[in-house]
């Protein structure tokens, strides 16, 4: 589900649009709130509170009973609802494979491409040290 949290609401919606989805309803309407983000002293020590982030959440239930939860950074309630819907669909025997193939896999691919590109740009700024003058002879 991490892939979905990285995608835009529109990207998820566009991929769900082509699927014949089962009946579903909001178990919890999208709601905005805060999550306190924690770091660790020295990066790996005891936790401390760094600051909050806005978070949107929702829950969806399929007619067949599966319940999905959606959480995402930001205040896009529709995105939280779409994630919850995907979470519910993934658990369904009839739709799990389809959603993985048609929604999650392509978005994962897209995320990987974006990250790879960013990593290549970052890699170009890596320092190659070389010795200018050697103190011999």
């Amino acid at each position: 589900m991490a892939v979905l949290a990285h995608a835009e609401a529109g990207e998820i919606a566009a991929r769900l649009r082509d699927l014949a989805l089962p009946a579903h309803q909001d178990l919890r309407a999208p709601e905005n709130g805060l999550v306190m983000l924690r770091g660790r002293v020295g990066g790996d020590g005891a936790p401390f509170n760094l600051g909050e982030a806005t978070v949107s959440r929702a829950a969806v239930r399929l007619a067949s009973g599966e319940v999905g939860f959606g959480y995402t950074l930001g205040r896009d309630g529709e995105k939280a609802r779409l994630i919850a819907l995907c979470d519910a669909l993934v658990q369904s025997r009839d739709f799990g494979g389809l959603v993985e193939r048609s929604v999650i896999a392509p978005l994962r691919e897209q995320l990987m491409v974006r990250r790879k590109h960013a990593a290549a740009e970052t890699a170009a700024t890596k320092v190659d040290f070389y010795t200018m003058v050697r103190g011999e002879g």
Partner: protein
Amino acid sequence: MYVAVKGGERAIENAHRLLANARRGDQSVAEVTLDQISEQLGLAVDRVMSEGSLYDRELAALAIKQARGDLIEAIFLVRAFRATLPRFGTSEPVDTGAMLVQRRVSATFKDIPGGQILGPTFDYTHRLLDPSLAEGFVPETPATAETSAALTPRVTDILGRDGLIESSPEAEDGASVGDLTREPLNFPADRDLRLQNLARGDEGFLLAMGYSTQRGYGRNHPFVGEIRFGEVEVEFAAEDVGFAVPLGAIELTECQMVNQFKGSATEAPCFTRGYGLAFGQSERKTMSMALVDRALRARELGEEALAPAQDEEFVMSHSDNVQATGFVEHLKLPHYVDFQSELGLLRKLRKEFAEANAPDAMKEAAE
């Protein structure tokens, strides 16, 4: 006598209307959009998120626009907004060691696993104004290079393996994590509260405090062990779900300061540490934070604590720019009644002074 005064409503309303116009400026000039602020003034957005203590780029951009670019006013707006939302809970601590680094440098070790990665930095620029940026500037496409699978471990973890540097303090079993947004500050404050306070503290204040330690007011001989900036994943243990759910990624800057060593008859000498962490790309902020964090550990490390940066009550009570600006700026609001009483007292004292110092002739005449 206290007299309740009303009035000024129309003046206030009109002043706010005038402000809205001043904020918009010349309307023949295109209006700035939130995307433009977020994309092109990204470091201002990072600062407002850090000191507003709320990670939300869009809200920070809106606050900057509303505040006409006054970042402390924008931080104030963000803090006020956060008070309107319920808190769902607390994230799992982020793992900065697993960061997708966009920048990572060490001033202490040249050859670190993963390498020195400069990323988007002002370092080594010439600080000459660039007229070509004035209009229509199109940057060159960034260069790319083969990526390596090498991990980028934290430099302090590498030093730690040889015991050359003190290890990070472990959480005590069952110890709760202090939260100064929920409980009032008490002194002495533990390191978790100090770091929370510094993370949302004013960059200028922390910069000055950190600088003061370098100039000798609480010297602790710092080296930048590492600065890293990039994306980290955030996970949240949601009660309704029953396990940790991914929320997405945030950008963070982390600074590991390596400081003068200490040892004792029972402990081998090792370097000590200061730590800085902030939202977005905030290097000056995290470096200052790490210097001050280390300075505030003076007592714990058995050092003399005589300098301002080593005084946690002084630092923590004055680092918050929303509190500070509130108290300083309230002075411009009407204090007519307070001032009237001061004025009355002063007049009385002056009269007494005049009477006591009057020439004798006057006194006699008066008698």
